[in-house]
């Protein structure tokens, strides 16, 4: 059923918090995501011409890098982009077959590859580019929040997190239940002002992004010698060099 489910009492709302302050843009999350999912729930993730000109493949996680602002106040921000498991997910409601669905128990948005007709309407409906069509399989693929890891009892409990989270060397990605106000993800959003992407569309994404922290020191400091500050040695050098 592609109508959105009414969350059950006590249902979880699983998702990610992505910290843009600590992300170093190493793409490890994207690579580990590809590695895990190429043999997981949505396997295989097609790669065409992988070692030739014009390589093309399905990835669930893409890391952009942006520059924001001008001059000394500008920032370079690394920005991982993946499915946000929206509360109001049009990629689910537009699906004509029921293949695209949102789980009532934890809010994860999945594709049933057996029922997908490959019409790609869900990819058009997603504002965030979270869905990529697998031309080999003829079905749509997307982030599963590593459903085959987070509930996998064959893994150590510490490893029951999405592949992107487990691999991040900067701990910029956090996984948890947003319906639990005491969870790490809820706390991070509260403390750091976690926000929604494209809030104006009203998709109510579950995943939140934490903004880069403001720089502690003003970056527009001028050389000490020009302001008359600094140590007496510097002031003497300034006088000596100015002669």
């Amino acid at each position, binding site marked *: 059923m592609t109508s959105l489910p009414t969350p059950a009492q006590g249902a979880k709302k699983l998702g990610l918090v992505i910290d843009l302050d600590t992300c170093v843009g190493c793409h490890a999350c994207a690579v580990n995501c590809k590695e895990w999912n190429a043999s997981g729930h949505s396997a295989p993730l097609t790669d065409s011409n992988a070692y030739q000109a014009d390589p093309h493949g399905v990835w669930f996680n893409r890391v952009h890098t942006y520059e*924001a602002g001008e001059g000394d*106040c500008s920032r370079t921000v690394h920005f991982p982009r993946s499915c946000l498991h929206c509360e109001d997910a049009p990629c689910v409601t537009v699906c004509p077959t029921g293949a695209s669905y949102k789980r009532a128990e934890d809010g994860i948005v999945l594709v049933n590859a057996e029922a997908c007709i490959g019409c790609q309407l869900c990819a*058009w409906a997603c504002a965030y580019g979270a869905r990529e069509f697998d031309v080999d399989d003829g079905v749509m693929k997307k982030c599963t929040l590593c459903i085959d890891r987070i509930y996998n009892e064959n893994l150590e409990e510490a490893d029951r997190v999405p592949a992107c989270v487990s691999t991040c060397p900067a701990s910029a990605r956090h996984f948890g239940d947003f319906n639990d106000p005491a969870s790490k993800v809820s706390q991070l959003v509260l403390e750091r002002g976690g926000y929604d992407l494209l809030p104006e569309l009203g998709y109510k994404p579950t995943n939140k992004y934490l903004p880069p922290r403001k720089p502690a020191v003003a970056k527009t400091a001028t050389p000490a010698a020009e302001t008359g500050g600094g140590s007496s040695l510097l002031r003497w050098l300034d006088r000596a060099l100015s002669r």
Partner: protein
Amino acid sequence: MKPAGSIVFFTTASGAGYGMLFWLGVLGALGMLPETIGFGLIALGLATALFTAGLLSSTAHLGHPERAWRALSQWRSSWLSREGVAALLTYVPVLVFGLLWLLGSRPVALLGLLGAVGAAITVYCTAMIYASLKPIRQWNHGLVPAFYLIAAGFSGALCLAAVTAFFDVTAAGRLAVLALALGAGGIAVKLAYWQAIDGSVSASTPESATGLGSIGKVRSFEAPHTEENYLLKEMGFRIARKHAAKLRVYAALLGFGVPLAMLVGVAAGAVPVAVLILAAACGLLGMLLERWLFFAEATHTVVLFYGRQA
């Protein structure tokens, strides 16, 4: 958005077919069309062939066409599913209508009207597939369903007029007047639509997409991949502004200008009704171009993440 040939053909052909069916049902009920078996066979046959070819063409866009039947299940939430259901249900009155007509009885008005209602609903559902998508501002617009409906009515009336010209010149003349009115309405809606999408900007920006607007203007510094991926191929399709402007003129001329001039000639009795065939062919060609542009000019919010304007 990438203009997939199968979908451009689908919306144009099914629009014309359902438009024909609509006027066959409505004008037939009013007794304004020939009632001979030959006319029924050709007119209803052509209408059915057009929308059937369109529907079949749409399955060419699917990764798994053999599973297309599954698309009938989610009509509660999905416009694509509703379209499928409406299209299939419309076949019921159409086939009975046609069968009874061919078996020698006069066309049954009620069946024709049911077919007309089904045709209108199906075209509306097709339009809403696009109009309901919030990330694409050029589609998420009230004039989109308005144009789909009037374009279907216009191209259907053009085709029906061309067929009728072989059977009943007076009836064909009346259809030419109807098509003239619909064509005038159609180009007015299209011009208003073009003005609306040119005059508005997306509420979404690279700043709202990344949430980094508080730092300042956001520029893409490095893309996640060096080659075009599915997203950019499918939703990052770009058409140069200068070409779009030219193609709009061609679409307006072929789709509306030339056929309307021919219709005026027919209505005034200045040119033979056979010209209606040319008018229909020209109109359909223009409509194909218009539909191609409808896709090519549409932008998707995903390109904001790649530092482009949506």
